[in-house]
Structures are given as structure tokens and as C-alpha cells.
């Protein structure tokens, strides 16, 4: 199966006007790819559906706004892929 990065990059290219070859692991979704908040909402919906998760965008935004985490942790493609993989793993883990 394709990596989380590739699957997310494909979703972004399908959902927005960003060409697939412009999306690299170091691309910042907003600053480099120019995705606005409404397109980002569509992308999050596509990721939620593709991976069967609920990307906690609000919690991430709160962490960034409170200075507890840099935006790059969530919005640079390679890190976004890691966060999504973590969410998938957490969902698959047996509950205590």
C-alpha cells in the first residue's frame, strides 16, 4: 500500500488545484502549497474518509496558538503524514 504521505499528497492534488509533483515531504500545506482554510477543510474531510479517522484540527490549532507546538508539527507534509499514521495506529490499538 502507498505510504501515508503519498496517499495524503494524492488527496490534496485531487481536492485542490495543487499539482501532485509540487507536493513534497517538506511542503508546508498552507505556506508552500497555498491551500486556504476552506480547501484545507475539504482535504481534512478527504483524509478523515480515506483513513477512517477524525483529524483533530481544532486541537492542533489550539496547540499552535497556545505556543505549545510549532505549526510545522502538523502542517508540513511529512509531519502531517506521521500525525495521520499515529491517529490510525491509535484507532487500531485495543482499548484498555
Amino acid at each position: 500500500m502507498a505510504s501515508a504521505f503519498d496517499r495524503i499528497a494524492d488527496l490534496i492534488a485531487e481536492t485542490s488545484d495543487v499539482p501532485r509533483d509540487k507536493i513534497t515531504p517538506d511542503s508546508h500545506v498552507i505556506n508552500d502549497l497555498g491551500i486556504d482554510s476552506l480547501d484545507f477543510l475539504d482535504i481534512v474531510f478527504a483524509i478523515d474518509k480515506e483513513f477512517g479517522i477524525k483529524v483533530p484540527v481544532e486541537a492542533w490549532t489550539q496547540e499552535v496558538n497556545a505556543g505549545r507546538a510549532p505549526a510545522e508539527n502538523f502542517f508540513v507534509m511529512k509531519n502531517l503524514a506521521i500525525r495521520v499514521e499515529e491517529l490510525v495506529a491509535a484507532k487500531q490499538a485495543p482499548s484498555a
Partner: protein
Amino acid sequence: MRLEYFEMIDRITAVDETTLTADCLVPPAAGNPVFAGHMPGYPLMPGVLLIETMAQASGWLLLHRLNFTRMPLLASVKEAKLRSFVLPEASLQVEATLVHDGSGYAVTTGRITSNGKKVCEVELTLRALPFPTPELAAMVRDRARALGLPVAAPA
């Protein structure tokens, strides 16, 4: 319906965690400023107001799910299909269904029928934001009660 006040829903008839249904009665054309303009001599319910009606039904569904803690606001309209004209005094049945409950947003579908006949449908995305003022939150609760939507006391 009071079109000029954007009061599109007359009565919420049923609601659960994923679906809300409501009834609406399109007002008569005589003296109605919306029908005076749309269109002169040939009054038709504007398609954008049908979409607004489905958006409001979705909004009430989300308010119910969120226990009125946040205000749903329309963010995107997709796949809108307006299948048949709606005339003054038509009776409409509206249905909103949750498709996806996201973080700070939700995706719904809306559908309107009139006496069993398909009128229109749409896919909508709504953001859920904090109420900008307590007065608006109180007004929304009052309006919900008037429409027949159960409202719990604020936490």
C-alpha cells in the same frame, strides 16, 4: 417561511443524532418582496433560498448534536441539484442527514420534497464556531424552541 427574514423552517418534525426533518410552507406571492423580484409576473422560489433552507435544516441538526454550544455556519455547497420549480404556497418537507462529523466541521446532505416529489438536494459543509455573542446564542435557543426542537438548559 418568512423569506425576507430568512426564516426558512416552520416546524421541526423529528430529530435524532443523524437526521432532522422539518416542514415549510412557501408564502403566497401577493405582497411578498422576494416574489416581486423573482420573478415579476412569474413568482418562483429562488433556488438559492432552497439551498438556504437545506442549510438551515443542517444547522439545526448540528445545533442539536452540539447541544447549542456552537454555531454552525455554512462553508461550502456541493452537488446542488434543483430538480423542479417551487411555486408560492407549496408545502415542502426538508431532511438533513449527517454524513461526517469532523473536528470543528461537519458534512451533511440536504433534501427537499414536496408531496413526495423530489425538489432538490445538496451536500453541505458547515463549520462549528463559538457563538459570537451570548445574545445570539440565546436567540438561537429561543428560535429552536419555537420550531419544536428540544433545547436543554445551558451548562
